[in-house]
């Protein structure tokens, strides 16, 4: 059984991330973002999801120990919303309050074919959003994978490591290919 933990940054949908993983038969738990990396290592996890959180939470400071996880992890990491924004900042990109925040239903456009996280996802699909902030400058070593009308960096990935950031929320029921994206992430963690 693959083991993927959800780091809780205080998001309204942290529990949904846990539930989606559990429904895919993943061995999963929600752990606070103050957990030391050593503790996670002891649990032999295969992957990590960094949850979202309240507005502005990822724009300054260290978002608990998320920086330590990004620095030391040898397993795949999926950052969602605040987790994604923090990931961008950590690698030298920028995250700022959105000019046009997005809430609810939005059309997502994929920019790259054949990325393993988006396998089986249509070029255009409906995703659900809930963000006040966004990544405005892509960090070095990352590439952009998806955009929406008002947010250019809806998805990004590290070019070498299996590290993804998503601005939209694949964990909620109303996102068209949400479960598919999680399935793909689980596959990446199994390898």
């Amino acid at each position, binding site marked *: 059984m693959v083991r993927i933990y959800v780091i809780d940054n205080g998001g309204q949908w942290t529990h*949904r991330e846990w539930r989606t993983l559990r429904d895919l038969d993943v061995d999963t738990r929600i752990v606070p973002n103050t957990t030391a990396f050593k503790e996670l290592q002891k649990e032999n996890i295969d992957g990590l999801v960094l949850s979202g959180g309240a507005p502005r939470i990822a724009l300054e400071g260290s978002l608990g120990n998320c920086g330590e996880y990004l620095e030391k992890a040898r397993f795949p990491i999926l950052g969602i919303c605040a987790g994604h924004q923090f990931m961008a900042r950590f690698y030298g990109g920028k995250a700022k309050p959105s000019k046009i925040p997005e809430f609810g239903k939005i059309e997502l456009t994929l920019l790259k074919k054949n990325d393993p996280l988006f396998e089986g996802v249509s070029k255009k699909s409906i995703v659900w959003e809930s963000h006040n902030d966004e990544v405005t400058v892509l960090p070095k070593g990352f590439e952009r994978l998806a955009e929406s009308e008002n947010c250019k960096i809806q998805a990004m990935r590290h070019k070498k490591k299996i590290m993804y950031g998503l601005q939209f929320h694949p964990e909620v029921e109303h996102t068209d290919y949400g479960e598919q994206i999680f399935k793909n992430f689980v596959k990446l963690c199994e390898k």
Partner: protein
Amino acid sequence: MFDAERFIEKTVAKLKEDVTKKALIAFSGGVDSTVSAVLVNRAIGNQLIAVNVDTGYMRKNEPENVKKMMKELGLNFRFVDANKEFYHALKGVEDPEKKRKIIGEKFIRIFERVAEEEQIEYLVQGTIAPDWIESGGGLRDTIKSHHNVGGLPKTMKLKLVEPLKDLYKDEVRKVARILHLKVSERQPFPGPGLAIRIIGEATPERTELVREACDIVEKEIEHAVEKGLMEKPWQYFAVLIPIKTVGVHGDKRAYGNTIAIRAVQSVDAMTCHYSTIPHEVLDTISTKITNTLKEKVNRIVYDVTNKPPGTVEWE
């Protein structure tokens, strides 16, 4: 995947261990509290007392229906008529968070009274995942204080038992179906009841208006679903907006309140899409509400907000 049968087995076994003395369940007659009551009842039998409180903010005929249900389920029960107490406590209160907190505290004080009389030590609640997630605490922002979590007073004598805490509504419904409970498909109704479907002060007079309007919305939508005109919404109701607009009633100027029709589709209440109610159904609802509530209500609006940015209820 969530295994409801295993959940029932494990939970009943755990409740047998954890609940060693008399317990009381806050029983509303909704899916969550009914499932909780049946599980605890399986574990400790008539050591469990179901308490239903008529807050005055219940839907039409609800107190009678809930009493009937508690009898049918073979529960040891108490019914508390606290209409006046609640109306009094909410007098002059307009802020939605204050309303929720006052109601949450009132509930607990009533339960404590019963507990003292019956020498009860445990309070069982049908809390489910979205209740404590939205109530905030720690890192999480408070979206709204669910009366059974964020609305709880700081000092409480009873020990809390929440067997459904990690489940979502669709999972609770699965458990309810296995337990053959009639309420398994019932639409959610918030604990604070109609008090949070009245924007502004929840006076007894305003409550009557929204009670009638909710009843019309429920009946007409259920009727439309039966006829195959629309999909059954997750939740459907009316909200009273005490903003007056001008109308005309038989050559006479009218100046009455506004009612909003709200219906949403969801699986777990964490995200919702507004329901597409056919225009003919909206039309019937609109005419019925205004004809029934006459000079009190002369305008009907239809809420087309998803969650996010909105929430299901308006407060």
